[in-house]
């Protein structure tokens, strides 16, 4: 599989990854400028940026570990591109699998042909465009749906948004709870640590605790998951 890690493939991933970074830069600049005009303080903007940065490190390392599986099957450049643009391990691995399965292979099989490999690349690429197209063309129209849910009442919007967040994360975390005891422990402890840290931050008004709260919660949750796995295992 020299092709999968060839210089040509690395080069071919650069344009699309650049678009992701470019968009982030454009949006960031504008949000900073307009944010100030809207009365957000320099402190608030900087805190938002810092918290985004800190909170991203842990999950990005986790994505990196998931990327190992993808690197082993589709090579470094494609794995990097797929996980920097559009995808997540939960989509890319099955998509690649569906690609090579057209030739009767499974991922990780020895001696996958070049054609099967290329089909996996096509399958991930075409499969991922759905989200891009819907978000590119549909986003401006979605505001109407949200205002409808809010019934045109301004006060209701933060409640609708928080409820959406709670619903989405309830869905994410019940999936983890169903996965086993260690996952459930991580969910519970991650939540408790967050509550505790935010409480301390509120009481003493210490800003850096808020910035690190998510990072700390995930590390503690990680260790509790491991501890449960090596002690009691999984009960379901």
């Amino acid at each position, binding site marked *: 599989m020299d*092709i999968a890690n060839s210089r040509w*493939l690395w080069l071919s991933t650069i*344009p699309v990854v650049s678009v*992701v970074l470019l*968009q*982030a830069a454009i949006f960031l600049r*504008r*949000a900073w400028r307009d944010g100030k005009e*809207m*009365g*957000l303080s320099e402190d608030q903007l900087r805190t938002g*940026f810092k*918290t*985004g*940065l800190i909170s991203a490190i*842990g*999950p*990005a390392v986790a994505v*990196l*570990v998931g990327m*190992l599986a993808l690197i082993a099957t589709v090579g470094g450049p494609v794995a990097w591109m797929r996980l920097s643009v*559009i995808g*997540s391990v939960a989509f890319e691995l099955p*998509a690649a699998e569906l*690609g090579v399965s057209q030739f009767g292979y499974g991922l990780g099989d020895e001696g996958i042909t*070049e*054609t099967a*490999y*290329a*089909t996996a*690349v096509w*399958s991930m*690429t075409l499969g991922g465009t759905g989200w*891009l197209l819907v978000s590119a063309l549909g*986003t401006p129209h*979605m505001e109407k749906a949200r205002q409808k*849910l809010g019934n045109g009442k301004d*006060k*209701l919007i933060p*409640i*609708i*948004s928080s*409820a959406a967040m*709670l*619903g989405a*994360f309830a*869905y994410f*975390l*019940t999936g*983890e709870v169903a996965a086993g005891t260690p996952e459930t422990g*991580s969910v519970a*402890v*991650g939540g408790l640590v*967050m509550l505790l840290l*935010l409480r301390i931050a509120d009481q003493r008004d210490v800003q850096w605790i808020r910035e690190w709260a998510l990072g700390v*919660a*995930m590390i503690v*949750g990680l260790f509790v*998951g491991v501890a449960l*796995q090596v002690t009691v295992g999984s009960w379901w």
Partner: protein
Amino acid sequence: MSGTDSSAAGGSGTGSDVYQDSFIPYINTWGRRTNLLAVLLSLGPAVVLLTVFDIVPPSQAIIGAFVSVAATFGIFWVVEPISYYPVLGIPGTYMAFLSGNISNLRLPCAAAAQESADVQTGTPQGSIISTIAIAASIGVNTTLLGVGAFALVSAFQALPGLWQNALESYLVPAVFGAIFAQFGRDYPKVAGVGFVLALAMTLLLEAGVLNFLPGYPLYVVIIVSVFGTILIARWMWEQGMIEAPEDD
């Protein structure tokens, strides 16, 4: 330095004018351009395999693979943007669906940043902060994965299997628990509703009760969890059972 400026968090008149009349149109223009451009450029590796290496997979294999992918994930192309939109806002939707890793990375970063910058989710100010936080998270994850793909792979493979598995399995659940708790602090009743709804739907899914629906009915679990929670929260608000926390 908690950066509490209550007039900012409250959404003053001029603030939302700048947001609606200047920021959002700009974001819509550039968001659409960049995401469509990414559709084209994401073909890069496939095209290089085609042109430089002359690997031409039979078209029926590509079509077969695409149809299988569309059958499995197609519903999520629509359900996910619509479900996450109330959370991500306009700029966040463009960015998150361009850069991926939404549940495990973009949403938690945006939420944590809103908490520490002391702005409310769903307000123009909240949207500005989540834009900034998501941009920061994109920088981190592109860099880290790029370095990782080049250099760190062997280091991670040297990790004992237990820790590889732990990083893959237990970090993300802790993030989910933490963000849920963060929002649950402000709205404990809504958190209870969301949890019960999602748990019930997940159990129904696992028990196979939803199998009468076409495809793998995970999408029903998302829709019911997100929109069910929204509708019940709205009803609770109308009944005076909950209210938005005061900006301090």
